[in-house]
Structure formats: structure tokens, C-alpha cells
């Protein structure tokens, strides 16, 4: 399992760690789950192994969560971080986000939103296709090198991508040397430019470094860009599509979270595509989707029999939740709400449905 991600869960409560482990085993990508009961132990584990995600509690003895996050941000800038805390203080939330955490969840919200929590984690685990270098959003490595050269600076750029480390030597705005994956000079530079994401840091200049690159940096960048375009023309469409799909999923999840609904299932007519699920498990969603299809057929028969006009919506309730079925032009939407969701659910559901495919 080469691509299996590792998640480290840090919490001083051993029972919670056990519970977390059980919950995280439900993640579709089946990551390896490791646990630590202290900040010190967690940092030692991060030093020794490569993790994709750290889930961290805030209130802990000796080194608290915020301290751990501050250290992690400095030492492991590629690591995704999630805070899972029982502290409902807005100040802690702000401080955690200021430290660059990717997500903040309250333990008290977990019970009702477990599926959403897991979907967010899964999204974080798979987010390395997004590209861009952390620290400078949406900027490619080419942009960063051009900036360094245009400002005529002298420095060493240390670029990290997972376990790979590369270095670029820039002297007075000119690229003088490169080193990556055992290669040096222009070959190393071309290799580095194929990296789509990672982190970089500026190290002090090394003016005495022997020069191996003599071509102007713009010429090298142009050559590399052409080579990348030629080799990746076919893959670009797929990659764009993946990013689009990912963005749409995040948008829909944020709609769901903002509205406070438990789940949304969209059900196209029989034989016209598959249902789409957000916020609940696939097996449950299948049952709901089938029920929605059959119910839509029953309602149509009923409406036709008594000349009641078209269906506007259906609402239903059982011991666990409230359901709203909203028919739309090319599919039906089933929205699930908890029993404590309060009033105005029809309006909230309609608003969410209108925005769903926008």
C-alpha cells in the first residue's frame, strides 16, 4: 500500500483516541491511523515518519495543542492539520486558524456530523492534486523563481515535496546551480519544475558555490514549460476535471454545513444517471434514493387520481430525523435534517437546492 496516507491523532484522553481510531477506519481511503497521548510523543513520531494529516486536541498537559501546532507549522509545513477540541471558545478557534490549521471541529458536534467530518478529512487527505506552493497561494514554482530573479536577489531556495528535497542557487538574480533527486545543473532544474506542489524556504546565499548553469533563467523556464506542455497535454484535461470535481464537492459540503442539514441526496429519474450523495453513508443513501424514486412514482399516481396538481414538496418525520423531498426539473432532492433542526426547514432546503448546481 504505497499510497496509503498516515494520520496521527494527538489527544491526552486514551479513550477518545480509541474512539477516534474506530471512526477514522471508516474513511474510504483506509489510511493508517497512529495515536499519541502527548505533544512530545507526537513530535517525535512526526520526526521519524511521514504523515499526511495531524488531528490535534487543544487542551493537554505540558505542551498544549496550540504549541504543538506552532512547532508543526514551522517544522512540517506540508502536514495537514485538524483541530478537534471540546473548547467552544471562539478565541481558540481564531488562534488555531491563525496558526494555519486546515480545519477546526468541536468534539461536541461530532456525534451529529460524523459523516461530514469524515468527508472533510477525506478531502484533506486527497488534496495534493491542487497544486501551488504553500506559503504563496496559487503560485507555481516558475513564478517563484522568476520573482527571485527579477528582484536580483541572492539566495538558496530549498524546495520540499514530500520526502524529496531540492535546492536552487540564485546569485544576483541569476540561476547558478540546481540539485534534485541526485541530478545537478540544468537536468536537476528541469526535474524540479515538474513538481506541482510543495513548500519552499529561502536560505542564505552561497556566493562561492560552483556555477553549473550558464543559460539565462528565462530561456530555461521557457524550454521547461514547452517540455511540460508537450508531455502533459493529455493529462491536463483529466487533472482539470479532478480539480473541478473537488471544488464542486467542497462547495456542496459548505452549503450543507452552512444550512445545518444532515445530508442531501439527488435522485435522477430511473435509468438517467446515478444518485449523488453528500453527508451520509453510501449504503444508507442507496436506501433513501430507492425510497425517493418509489415515493415519487406513488405520489404521481395519487396526484393524477385526485387531480391535485403537481407535487410541490413532501415532508416526513420519523424517530431519527425529518426529511424533505423537493422535486426539480431533472431530479428529485431528498434533504435530511435532525429533529432539533428548528423551523424554516422548507425555505432552507429550497435555498440549498437552488444553489446546489450553481
Amino acid at each position: 500500500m504505497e499510497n496509503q496516507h498516515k494520520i496521527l491523532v494527538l489527544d491526552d484522553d486514551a479513550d477518545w483516541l480509541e474512539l477516534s481510531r474506530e471512526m477514522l477506519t471508516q474513511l474510504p481511503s483506509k489510511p493508517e491511523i497512529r495515536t499519541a497521548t502527548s505533544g512530545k510523543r507526537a513530535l517525535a513520531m512526526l520526526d521519524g515518519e511521514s504523515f499526511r494529516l495531524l488531528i490535534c486536541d487543544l487542551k493537554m498537559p505540558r505542551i498544549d495543542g496550540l504549541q504543538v501546532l506552532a512547532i508543526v507549522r514551522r517544522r512540517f509545513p506540508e502536514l495537514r492539520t485538524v483541530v478537534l477540541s471540546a473548547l467552544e471558545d471562539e478565541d481558540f478557534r481564531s488562534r488555531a486558524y491563525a496558526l494555519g490549521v486546515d480545519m477546526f471541529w468541536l468534539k461536541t458536534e461530532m456525534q451529529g456530523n460524523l459523516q461530514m467530518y469524515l468527508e472533510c478529512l477525506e478531502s484533506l487527505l486527497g488534496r495534493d492534486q491542487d497544486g501551488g506552493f504553500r506559503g504563496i497561494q496559487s503560485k507555481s514554482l516558475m513564478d517563484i523563481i522568476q520573482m527571485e530573479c527579477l528582484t536580483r536577489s541572492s539566495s538558496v531556495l530549498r524546495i520540499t515535496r514530500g520526502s524529496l528535497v531540492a535546492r536552487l542557487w540564485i546569485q544576483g538574480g541569476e540561476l547558478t546551480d540546481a540539485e534534485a533527486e541526485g541530478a545537478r545543473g540544468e537536468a536537476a532544474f528541469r526535474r524540479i519544475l515538474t513538481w506541482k506542489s510543495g513548500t519552499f524556504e529561502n536560505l542564505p546565499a552561497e556566493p562561492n558555490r560552483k556555477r553549473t548553469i550558464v543559460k539565462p533563467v528565462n530561456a530555461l523556464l521557457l524550454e521547461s514549460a514547452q517540455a511540460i506542455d508537450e508531455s502533459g497535454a493529455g493529462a491536463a484535461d483529466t487533472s482539470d476535471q479532478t480539480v473541478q470535481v473537488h471544488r464542486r464537492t467542497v462547495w456542496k459540503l459548505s452549503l450543507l454545513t452552512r444550512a445545518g442539514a444532515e445530508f442531501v441526496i439527488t435522485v435522477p429519474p430511473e435509468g438517467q444517471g446515478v444518485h449523488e450523495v453528500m453527508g451520509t453513508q453510501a449504503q444508507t443513501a442507496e436506501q433513501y434514493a430507492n425510497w425517493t424514486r418509489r415515493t415519487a412514482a406513488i405520489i404521481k399516481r395519487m396526484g393524477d387520481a385526485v387531480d391535485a396538481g403537481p407535487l410541490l414538496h413532501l415532508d416526513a418525520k420519523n424517530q431519527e430525523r425529518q426529511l424533505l423531498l423537493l422535486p426539480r426539473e431533472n431530479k428529485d432532492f431528498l434533504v435530511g435534517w435532525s429533529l432539533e433542526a428548528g423551523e424554516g426547514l422548507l425555505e432552507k432546503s429550497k435555498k440549498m437546492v437552488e444553489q446546489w448546481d450553481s
Partner: protein
Amino acid sequence: MGLLEKIFGSRAAVTQLPSGSITVDRAGKIVSSTVSSAYPAHLLQAVAKEVLALLREARAAQMPLAEVSIHFASLRITARELRGGAIIFLFPQTALSPASD
């Protein structure tokens, strides 16, 4: 009126929407009804049958429903599960009907 009948022929066949409640047993038989007797019995029977089918489908999908409201453009049907049967309320919707949530 004679003139209108001459122009439009016999009166249009408009069925009034049902208003009231019916109780249905688990076999789909209407046990009691407050709906006007002028309303066709076979249509009431059709509503009862479909409502029971809807509740049955929900049970089959592991999500038994205690109550369901179906909002058509001109009729609202609210049904409560009643030991395998159901009590069904029928409310014709007019412009003056209160908005429901």
C-alpha cells in the same frame, strides 16, 4: 342560464377536492371518513391505497415514518401511521390557505 347552456353545452365535469379525514386499516379498507359522501369513494380508496404503499416503502427502506405530508399545488395530504393503517387528513389548498413548512 339557458343561454350559457346553449353556448357551453352541459356543465363541465369538475370534481371538488376532498376535504376531511379518513381512517384506513392495514388492509387498506376505509374504516371511517368525514369526507363528503359526494366525493367519489373509489378516489378516496385510491388515496388510501397509495398512502399505505408510501408508508410501506419507507418501512422497507429501514426508515419507518411516523408522519408524512404531501403538498400538491391544490391539495395537502397529511398521514400518520396507525398500527399498520393510517389516519389521513385532506386539506384543499386555496390562495387563502396558510403557508406550511
